[in-house]
């Protein structure tokens, strides 16, 4: 394949490494009984955080050094890293979400046409998973699944319902589930959402949707289609989702054909840092990366992780 569409993998994982910390059998002198002492197990958790940095002009910074940044994990400043390298993200797992609700109807037709055209023009890898979902009314509809590169999906989209309410958070939930079903360690999960951000009917709450995206380790690129963009509550919602997941918030006018190119740039400059997770009483760890010298640098990474993802997911399903 010609130019290879790159890969993200801003994933973290926590490796639980059990170690026996003290089991010793005590043998008493002269035939005394051997006392069975309790075995204590402790755990060392390693966090893998993928991120990219931008400068004051919002351009990607590729030549970062290990001492250019510090991680703040649950309020603790961490400068000792186990590893730091380029992320080498090579395979993508992408779900494109298209808002087809009443509030964005005037923009929908051109938006869909542009989106599908952009997707067709991009040079995807044969290993990439690309799915497209649309949402409106009470439903999230699958436009195409897994391989949306070569088929002209515009005609299929025409037959799907449009108008009605905006189940944005349900759609994010559906996208997260789809990513989770196809999750592989070397696949970079990304959600691209085209919407005005104004959820009106979802059963899923904003917090639940965001939590599940964080658990899945997905990065959200939010394209605001509202006019004017950036001034509504919906815009703030999209901005929050993009920021908290380490993605980007883009306005439809600014993004234009650039949204997929933006991936590629971010992907190529992505770095991965690993460190020991600090002790904490909570399963959820908030994470931010800050500069150590140049305050003009801005670091994009997920804003948190769960020490025990399974537990977080099960709590959410209750």
């Amino acid at each position, binding site marked *: 394949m010609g130019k290879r569409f790159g890969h993200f993998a801003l994933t973290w994982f926590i490796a639980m490494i059990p170690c026996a910390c003290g089991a010793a059998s005590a043998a008493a002198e002269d035939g005394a009984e051997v006392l069975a002492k309790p075995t*204590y*197990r402790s755990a060392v958790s390693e966090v893998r955080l993928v991120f990219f940095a931008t400068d004051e002009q919002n351009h990607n910074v590729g030549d970062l050094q290990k001492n250019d940044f510090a991680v703040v994990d649950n*309020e603790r*400043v961490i400068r000792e890293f186990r590893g730091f390298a380029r992320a080498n993200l090579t395979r993508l797992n992408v779900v494109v979400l298209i808002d087809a609700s009443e509030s964005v109807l005037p923009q929908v037709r051109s938006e869909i046409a542009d989106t599908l055209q952009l997707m067709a023009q991009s040079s995807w890898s044969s290993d990439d998973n690309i799915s497209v979902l649309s949402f409106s009314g009470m439903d999230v509809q699958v436009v195409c699944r897994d391989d949306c590169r070569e088929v002209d999906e515009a005609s299929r989209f025409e037959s799907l319902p449009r108008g009605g309410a905006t189940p944005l958070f349900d759609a994010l939930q559906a996208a997260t589930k789809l990513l989770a079903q196809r999750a592989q360690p070397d696949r970079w999960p990304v959600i691209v959402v085209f919407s005005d951000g104004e959820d009106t009917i979802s059963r899923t709450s904003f917090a639940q949707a965001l939590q599940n995206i964080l658990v899945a380790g997905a990065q959200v690129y939010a394209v605001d289609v509202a006019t004017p963009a950036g001034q509504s509550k919906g815009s703030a919602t999209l901005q929050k989702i993009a920021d908290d997941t380490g993605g980007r918030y883009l306005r439809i006018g600014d993004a234009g054909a650039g949204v997929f190119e933006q991936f590629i740039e971010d992907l190529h400059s992505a770095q991965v840092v690993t460190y020991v997770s600090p*002790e904490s009483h909570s399963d959820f760890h908030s994470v931010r990366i800050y500069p150590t*010298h*140049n*305050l003009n640098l801005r670091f994009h990474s997920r804003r948190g992780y769960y020490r025990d993802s399974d537990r977080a997911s099960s709590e959410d399903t209750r």
Partner: protein
Amino acid sequence: MKRACPTLLLCALATASAAQIGVYQPGSVVRMRMGDCMAAQHGLMATFGAPANATSQEACPEYTLVSSSVVYVIVGRSSNQLIPLAETIDFRFHKNELLVRIDDAKKESKFTIKEMLVRSDWDRLQRHIDQQLKADDVREAQR
């Protein structure tokens, strides 16, 4: 004796001046969080008046800055008042505020001092917290 007096006076003035301007000390930020902003309030009205609303909605960065003998908890005045999180930073005091030198920007950033602890007490407290967390981990693993 006559020469000694001006010398002593000069020394006293120099000391007073240094105390006023503040001599840089090294320190290291070990913790950071976004917390409530502390409005810069002074005087009777500030003490007895209503709380300032201007900054109450905003979250301001709060840093734990460890120096050789004292640990300071300092708060910025706005959400974007950040300190570079280098291994060591330089700071000094000026009019009850703590000024941090921002190397790359060649300027200083003013912070309100929220708390001060003697370093040895803070170290002891941290050890206690770490022990508690480790004990909790062991208990969790035993289950």
